[in-house]
């Protein structure tokens, strides 16, 4: 029998209203921290992990998030404070990053108030807005989201890394865990920016997350940088677009216990892309890996080629991986050719050059859609498709966040397509009859009778 030696201590159970999370910073406390001039009020704990804990705080009337590190994390990553300081001075590459805004350190007085009584530091950032959910919700199939939004999210992700890499920085540890999505728009947020470093300097300890790490990092042949970011970015885009993993095919089925050594084999020692055109030995299993088999045929050839480039030649040759700009171009082009299947209503992406496309979902032939011809490119007339400044001026960067126009279905007659003027300028629409009408900002015009729309950015031609 377990000995029942008398003891003074009573094992009072935790009461239900007493959470067992052990917040390092006492909720409700006001702390004077080094790095900010006003006292910081701890409103509530938001979450915690093995690195530290995140709190909602108020500083000088502004609500912010504070990530506070555990001393063990700081001890493992001696350059953390220096990297954070440099990131804060460099400022965010784009508004897709929940970037560190200020470094705060425990002052002498504040240490007394900390629950562990140990000096530490953290950084302030914006609170994550409501409406953004973890990308794992999409990959796990818990989210109502359309292909349009998933392709947009992938574009925004590539765009964010484009901006980061252009600043000479690298992220090192992108994975599903630090990406958030807004399902209605496809907008993204990248969190946990504390491993960001100057590319090639290697002033950090993180290697990445298995499954997202490039093989040369997992195998210890190289240190993480912009080239390994390109591998992780391709994995993340693949997982968003297919809800599957690019390297888990039949070879995974041979693994009984998926543990560390098994992951090392799959992702490091013997990686093989499941859709490698030259080696079919790791194709998805028709039962276990059905997600990959259903989703892969959806996407246009240029996107598939970037995956092949990154996961075939680029697997062992980091210089050959698809670049952020290539991803942006291929994803933006796919959005331009988005078409709705008249039979099943599913979103499809047939190439304009395809003479007899079939719907990936129902297999029906897709009749040639109406197209909007622009000075640079063409956009299929399908509800939700948008015209952007780069369609009119090839010198402008690819941007999706400020559309000039959007194709919309008429609210009472879904077959009637119009183009809504989202710009701040009036358009002139030219009808087949030769008449002209003005389309003011916010108005939509029926596309059916039009031959041309003249906008200050350039002309939109509608071939009959």
């Amino acid at each position, binding site marked *: 029998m377990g000995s029942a030696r008398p003891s003074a*201590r009573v094992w009072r159970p935790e009461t239900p209203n007493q959470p*067992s999370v052990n917040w390092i910073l006492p909720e409700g406390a006001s702390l004077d921290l080094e790095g900010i001039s006003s006292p910081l009020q701890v409103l509530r704990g938001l979450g915690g992990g093995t690195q530290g804990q995140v709190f909602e705080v108020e500083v000088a009337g502004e609500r912010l998030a504070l990530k506070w590190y555990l001393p063990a994390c700081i001890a493992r990553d001696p350059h953390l404070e220096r990297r954070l300081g440099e990131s804060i001075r460099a400022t965010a590459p784009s508004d897709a990053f929940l970037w560190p805004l200020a470094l705060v350190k425990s002052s002498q007085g504040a240490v007394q108030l900390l629950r562990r009584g140990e000096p530490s530091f953290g950084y302030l950032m914006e609170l994550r807005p409501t409406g953004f959910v973890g990308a*794992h919700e999409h990959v796990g199939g818990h989210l109502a989201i359309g292909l349009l939004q998933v392709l947009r999210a992938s574009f925004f992700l590539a765009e964010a890394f484009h901006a980061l890499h252009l600043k000479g920085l690298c992220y090192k540890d992108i994975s599903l865990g630090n990406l958030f999505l807004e399902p209605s728009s496809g907008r993204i947020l990248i969190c946990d920016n504390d491993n960001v470093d100057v590319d090639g300097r290697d002033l950090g300890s993180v290697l990445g997350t298995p499954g997202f790490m490039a093989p040369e990092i997992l195998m210890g042949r190289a240190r993480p940088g912009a080239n390994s970011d390109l591998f992780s970015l391709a994995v993340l885009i693949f997982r968003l677009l297919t809800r599957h993993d690019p390297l888990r095919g039949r070879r995974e089925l041979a693994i009984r216990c998926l543990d560390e050594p098994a992951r090392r084999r799959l992702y490091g020692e013997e990686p093989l892309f499941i859709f490698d055109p030259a080696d079919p030995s790791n194709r998805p299993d028709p039962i*276990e890996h059905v997600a990959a088999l259903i989703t892969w045929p959806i996407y246009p050839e240029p996107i598939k080629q970037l995956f092949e480039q990154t996961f075939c030649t680029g697997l062992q040759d980091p210089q050959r991986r698809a670049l952020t700009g290539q991803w942006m171009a291929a994803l933006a082009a796919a959005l331009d050719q988005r078409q709705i299947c008249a039979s099943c209503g599913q*979103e499809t992406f047939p190439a304009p050059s395809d003479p007899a496309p079939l719907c990936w979902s129902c297999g029906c032939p897709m009749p040639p859609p109406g197209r909007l011809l622009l000075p640079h490119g063409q956009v299929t007339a399908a509800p939700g498709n948008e015209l952007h400044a780069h369609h009119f001026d090839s010198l402008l960067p690819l941007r999706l966040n400020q559309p000039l126009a959007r194709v919309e279905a008429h609210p009472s007659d879904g077959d009637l397509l119009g183009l809504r003027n989202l710009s701040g300028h009036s358009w002139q629409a030219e009808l087949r009859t030769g008449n002209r009408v003005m389309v003011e900002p916010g108005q939509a015009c029926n596309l059916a009778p039009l031959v041309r729309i003249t906008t200050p950015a350039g002309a939109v031609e509608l071939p009959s």
Partner: protein
Amino acid sequence: MPFPNVRLANRPLHFIYICDCSGSMAAQGKIQALNQAIRQSLPGMAEVARQNPEARVLVRAVSFADRAVWHLEQPTEVQQLQWLDLQAGGITAMGEALELVAAVLQSPPMEERALPPVLVLISDGQPTDDFDAGLARLMREPWAQKAVRLAIAMGHDADTEVLQQFIGSDPGGGLPAGEIPGASGQTPLHRSGRSPRRPLQASSATSLAQYIQWASTAVVGAASMPASRMAGSGPQANIPLPDLPPTLMDPTDDVGPLVW
């Protein structure tokens, strides 16, 4: 139009509590503390399960006193789990409990493909039956060898030797991977002995709840979806274990250096 109705293929992750329900657990409210700690940990465990699309977390529980019996026999998805209270009374048939666990880790009923199981042994005393035979039976199963095996000692009367045998030898040797003693200059020396590869000493309801929560969230996360890797973390076991939860600076909680 919605994204195609598909999702990432997942593997089962079997999580098994092995709970001491001997008579001594009735003293000082220990069994109530354990029931409450497990119940409180379930929402966090469900959240981790949801965040890990690669895993289907299935929970079971064995209780042992005069005999070992399944307290929760059906592998139950954590989202559906309602914890029924364990009752204390009897002696400590820990070896028999390990045999019960061994029986479900053989294939079948164990699936052909899975994530490493997580086994959590919680005890406040010494086994009264043939522990060595039970452990030997368990460790004949390949899934038991691959499992993450954790042990929580409730109070200071638990037999930490047998709990350490259940865990296996500490591959980190002296210092655990997660803890860097003296890094802050303020870590009490005895705390540098804390390691997930050693029995976790829970000496109050608060520390018990923390360890149960850690096992059901951080460890489940590590076993189902890999976490960020740091350089220089050295050779790892088949599943690298996350850092232990930070402890409160509660002078009544850690009563001094632990003797092994």
